[in-house]
């Protein structure tokens, strides 16, 4: 097995991580630090620090100490110029006197200065580079369990067996490739749990997710778990695991000790050394100085010796003066002596990995005995087992220890914050952990506080004299460890909705318009022309002079049935519907509590207890939920069925619409028998249909709803029947022009989030005398009482049509806006719907419209531009 590191091949053995293979090949510097670009080597070996971040196969900031080596991987260093071993920007540390904590707040004390300096500072920032590869396959999965056990060490294994034995379905999650927890590399800490692992593996009620990490615990015991590469075609899978009970058995991780030059390459945590020895068969160096005391330090010393590393006697943490070395460590100074070495092994603080518990609301109490913040006050649906509870730990070094401010004693390896920096910040008044953290950026780097939080608390506690408990930890926030955007986003589905008539449109040269998920024909190209204006004009002319056909299947369609259906609609809509006669339809608007227009449509009464509703395309889900919401708990007999997908709908309109439709139905279509705003159920072209005599475009017309699968037949039949009359399908653009000439409002286009029906000129849709309806209180005043503004029609002088959204002005000051504007063939001039001040809502008043920066005069009109009496609509 071999991969590529900065262009040179590196051999790897089975079980190797990228880091262990590099280490074996002699690589010691793995990264450069964020601020001073100091060389850094393996520190934790456990994926918990910032020291081994590299670019792997283009992905930035990958921790190579936990990335399995694979054939063909392409690994590059990051954040070092030109190389890890020599980095120009490490000169930054020469200037550290000018870069004390918060230096940038104090240095560039004018906007101009900062504007000049910022680009340079910015250029030096960041770690990895943005990958070019847009692809990435991710999955989401969902799972429930009686018990989730997080952590596969001895205590997690035991907890899983105990719960499974008591009859629970258990999921065990562990982030290592193999079960066993710390016993995999702390061989002298106790026997290997081989037997436990075997029993867990074979237990039918336990599923094991090894190599998967849990990054957060959310409300209701929802665990976010990431499984890397669950199969060949997937980078990561995010499992949403919900468990009635969660056992946290995450154990401890090791955090560094504070002494000058504690960040030199070669200074590593004891568990990192033990991992190298036991998991990869690698002695961490030739000669080691070991800092630590007690049983654990003895254990580490023995491991080193058996791996053939020459060691000095144990050095207690208090005795350490500093590490020495240029880039890599060459000696440790302690108790007045110099101990030459090429690796310093630090038995650091063992920190209970209690993030999941504190996310769930558990406290973390300081326990000086064990030298750790231990979880307490667990919610009843959680428990903790093993070392995460603090059991069996003993303090590595007394905390809080006296602090000697030093410019090379690093508290935070992610952002190069030192004990000097922290002490300075404390002196400036940042003496609460939360403000200290924000000012020094300690705990806010890629290690997410794991390497630095305890030491930062200790420094703060010592300097303020407040003690560890009172100083306290900062809030634990998910995700921890970090999660990729790809895993969070999951598979990127982009559903597209096509109407039942989609292929009919495609065959006729439709140019598509995206409306939410829907595709609708914007207009149709013809053999003669594919120019939008020409085509739209021809479609327009067909409707005004002959007959046109448009697909309106995207309208939301709901059936509301039951004894109390009318009552519910009276409550939710502003108009009254309980008194609507069977066979009639009515325009319907819906407002919120503030009287603001939310949606409109039509409501038809098909039978005593059966209403048929249409909603705007985008608001269907909202209206359905809104109706259900207001129905809930009333005890009314109402059933609401969303029939949108089941129906195709078209609008046939124009002076010859009646002649066209007559050829396909036995219904009496006369203007008396089937008058404006009537509805019928009948067969059209042999297809059962609901017909509504309504007219958004302002001509005689019918909206016809049929079963979706019959939609294409109806469409073809209507076009056949209309051929002799010069029928033409028309798209959304022509429809928008036609309705604009009629001044028909489109909610959400001509109205905004504060428009009331009164302002939109829809006074008649509000039945103020109704006992109750949503928005009644807000709309109870007179329709004329103070309005913000009014929606008016404008006829614009000159040739140029304003763009939607153009400003309406009075004497050069903004006074309103154009919501929809088109050139009107009927008026022979550009027309618009626009919001104007109440004072200008007078027939014939003059305002200005801003067209490409120029003021153009426009005349206000309150009537429809086309057929204001509605004679053609009713004909």
């Amino acid at each position, binding site marked *: 097995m071999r991969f590529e590191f900065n262009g040179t091949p590196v051999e790897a053995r089975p079980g190797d991580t990228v880091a262990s293979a590099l280490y074996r090949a002699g690589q010691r510097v793995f990264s450069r630090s964020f601020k001073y670009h100091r060389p850094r080597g393996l520190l934790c070996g456990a994926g918990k620090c910032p020291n081994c971040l590299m670019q792997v196969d283009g992905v*930035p*900031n990958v921790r190579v100490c936990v990335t399995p080596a694979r054939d063909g991987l392409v690994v590059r260093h990051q954040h070092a110029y030109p190389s890890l071993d020599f980095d120009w920007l490490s000169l930054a540390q020469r200037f550290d006197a*000018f870069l004390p904590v918060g230096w940038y*707040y*104090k*240095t560039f*004390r004018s*906007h101009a*200065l*900062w504007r000049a300096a910022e680009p340079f500072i*910015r*250029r030096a*920032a*960041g*770690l*990895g*580079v*943005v990958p070019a*590869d847009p692809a*990435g396959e991710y999955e989401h999965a969902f799972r429930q369990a009686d018990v989730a056990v997080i952590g596969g060490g001895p205590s997690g294994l035991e907890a899983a067996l105990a719960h499974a034995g008591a009859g629970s379905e258990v999921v065990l999650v562990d982030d290592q490739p193999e079960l066993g927890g710390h016993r995999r590399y702390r061989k002298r800490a106790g026997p290997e749990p081989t037997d436990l692992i075997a029993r867990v593996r074979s237990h039918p009620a336990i599923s094991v997710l090894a190599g998967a990490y849990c990054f957060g615990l*959310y409300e209701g015991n929802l665990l976010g778990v990431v499984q890397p590469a669950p199969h060949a075609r997937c980078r990561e899978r995010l499992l*949403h695991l919900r468990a009635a009970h969660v056992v946290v058995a995450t154990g401890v991780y090791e955090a560094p000790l504070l002494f000058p030059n504690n960040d030199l390459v070669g200074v590593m945590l004891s568990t990192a050394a033990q991992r190298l020895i036991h998991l990869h068969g690698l002695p961490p160096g030739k000669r080691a100085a070991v800092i630590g005391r007690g049983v654990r330090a003895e254990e580490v010393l023995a491991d080193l010796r058996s791996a053939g590393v020459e060691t000095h006697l144990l050095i207690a943490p208090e005795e350490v003066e500093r590490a020495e070395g240029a880039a890599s460590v060459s000696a440790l100074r302690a108790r007045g002596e110099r101990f030459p070495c090429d690796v310093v092994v630090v038995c650091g603080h063992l920190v209970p990995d209690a993030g999941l518990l504190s996310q769930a609301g558990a406290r973390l109490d300081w326990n000086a005995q064990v030298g750790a913040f231990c979880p307490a006050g667990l919610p009843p649906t959680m428990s903790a087992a093993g070392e995460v509870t603090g059991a069996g730990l003993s303090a590595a070094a007394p905390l809080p220890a006296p602090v000697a401010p030093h410019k090379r004693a690093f508290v935070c390896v992610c952002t190069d914050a030192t004990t000097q920096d922290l002490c300075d910040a404390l002196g*400036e*008044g*940042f003496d*609460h952990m*939360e*403000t200290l953290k*924000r*000012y020094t*950026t300690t705990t806010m780097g890629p290690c*997410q506080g794991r390497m630095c939080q305890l030491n930062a608390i200790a420094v703060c506690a010592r300097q303020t004299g407040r003690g560890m408990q009172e100083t306290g930890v900062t809030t634990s*926030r*998910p*995700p*921890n460890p*970090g999660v*990729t*955007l*790809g895993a*969070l*986003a*999951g598979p*990127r589905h*982009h559903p597209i909705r096509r109407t039942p008539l989609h292929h009919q449109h495609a065959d006729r040269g439709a140019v598509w318009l995206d*409306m939410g998920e829907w595709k609708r024909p914007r207009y149709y190209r013809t053999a003669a022309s594919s120019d939008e204006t020409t085509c739209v004009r021809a479609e327009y002319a067909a409707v005004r002079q002959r007959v046109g056909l448009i697909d309106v299947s995207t309208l939301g369609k709901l059936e509301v049935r039951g004894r109390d259906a009318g009552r519910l609609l009276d409550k939710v809509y502003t108009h009254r519907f309980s008194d609507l006669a069977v066979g009639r339809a009515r325009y319907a608007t819906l407002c919120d509590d503030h009287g603001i227009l939310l949606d409109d449509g039509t409501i038809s009464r098909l039978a005593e207890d059966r209403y048929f509703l249409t909603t705007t395309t985008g608001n269907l889900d909202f209206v359905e939920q809104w109706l259900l919401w207001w129905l809930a708990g009333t005890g009314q007999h109402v059933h609401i069925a969303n029939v949108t997908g089941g129906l195709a709908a078209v609008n046939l309109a124009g002076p010859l619409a009646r002649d066209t439709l007559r050829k396909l139905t036995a219904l009496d279509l006369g203007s008396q028998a089937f008058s404006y705003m009537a509805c019928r159920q009948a067969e059209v072209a042999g297809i059962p249909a609901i017909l509504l005599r309504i007219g958004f475009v302002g001509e005689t017309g019918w909206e016809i709803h049929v079963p979706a699968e019959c939609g294409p037949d109806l469409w073809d039949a209507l076009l056949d029947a209309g051929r002799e009359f010069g029928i033409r399908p028309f798209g959304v653009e022509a429809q928008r022009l036609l309705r604009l000439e009629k001044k028909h409002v489109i909610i959400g286009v001509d109205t*905004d*989030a*504060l428009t009331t029906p009164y302002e939109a000129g829809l006074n008649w849709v509000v039945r103020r005398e109704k006992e109750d309806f949503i928005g009644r209180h*807000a709309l109870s005043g007179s329709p004329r009482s*103070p309005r913000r503004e009014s929606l008016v029609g404008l006829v614009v002088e000159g040739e140029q049509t304003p*763009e*939607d*959204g*153009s*400003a309406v002005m009075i004497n050069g000051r*903004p006074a309103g*806006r154009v*919501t929809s504007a088109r050139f009107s063939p009927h008026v022979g001039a550009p027309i618009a719907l626009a919001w104007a001040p109440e004072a200008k809502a007078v027939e014939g008043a003059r305002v200005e419209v801003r067209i490409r*920066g120029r003021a153009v005069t426009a005349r206000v009109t309150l009537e429809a531009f086309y057929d204001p009496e509605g004679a053609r609509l009713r004909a």
Partner: protein
Amino acid sequence: MDELFQSRRMWRRHELKPHYDVAIVGAGVHGLATAYYLAKEHGVRKVALLEKGYLGCGSSGRNTAILRSNYRTVEGIPFYELSLKLYEQMSAELGWNVLFSQCGHLTLAHNDSGVAGLRVRAENNQLLGVDSRIIYPAEIRRLVPALDVSSGAHWPILAALYHPPGGIIRHDAVVWGYARACDALGVEIHPFTEVTGMETARGRVERVRTTRGDLAAGAVVNCTAGWASTVSQMAGVPLPIVTHPLQACVTEPLKPFLHHVIVSATLHVYVNQTDKGELVIGAEIDPYQSYSFRGTLPTLEQMATYTLELFPQLHGLRVLRQWAGVCDITPDFAPIIGRAEDVVNFYMDVGWGTYGFKAAPGSGKLLAALIATGRAPELLEPFAPGRFRQGRLVGEKAAAAVSH
């Protein structure tokens, strides 16, 4: 330079006194700005800032710190423009770099009505002297090469409202800078001092009760954002405000590649890259009312999904933290600033919802003038507490809802 090497305390500790001229509840950016201008411009220095937590623990330390003035209405635009101008001068005025990076702000539109909405803003901005214009894909691609401007994208980018003076600021630096300046002017800052109640009589707040003792004040100011309605209730002043959580997240640092603030109202997401290289990503408000500070997984997933719609190449980037703040939402998405109608010494600067950081210097300055002189500056009038009773709402809702 001297200051670089001396570490003076930024603000001092004080005992609570029994009487102040002005007591401000909440030491977020609004409370601090109000105190600062009271002391600096009106010589009112017996001012106490009462803060229940540490300095900046509310939304002022949790926001995504986007500043802009390209609002929609004639009321809103000059008001936010005033703040933007004050922010430009702030580093020099406070002698403290607030790290205001005027990198430019782009609001993306993905459909026709979105473009029309942007045009309304561009037109009004231009008429009122704010640098703001509509740009189209070719120019967007030039400014932000990392953005997926391909027409094949599921949410094609049709146009953007480009606002060059907009940008981001270091929110904590503003809070600390104000606090330091307030302290130097004699204002007392009292962290960990929670206001627990108020006694009112004859239409005045007579006493303010806190966890560190009671006090009286000539004027009491509510600057508590997410808690605004509960604190006003203490003075017997009901507010039409609901509180919703708002979440954001931050990723690992990357080498700089994104030099503008990118907002998409349709996708309910906004993204920018800090000077440290991290991406800061914000969501729309949670759809339910709550005072919870706990992040949720669905919102995090939504932020990731929408970010990848705009920048698909970032799929391997890790999110390191997510957090929530609580936002005080008014019915018209405009703030409530001014004196309570029925309690003569009770003032409010609340209702800042998801967008109040950018407005703090301006509203602090104007409110200080109102408190000190008794006259409401003209720019404040549209935002008076009485407008809900009179049905005079401000029309920002259409533009402000998600565009911070």
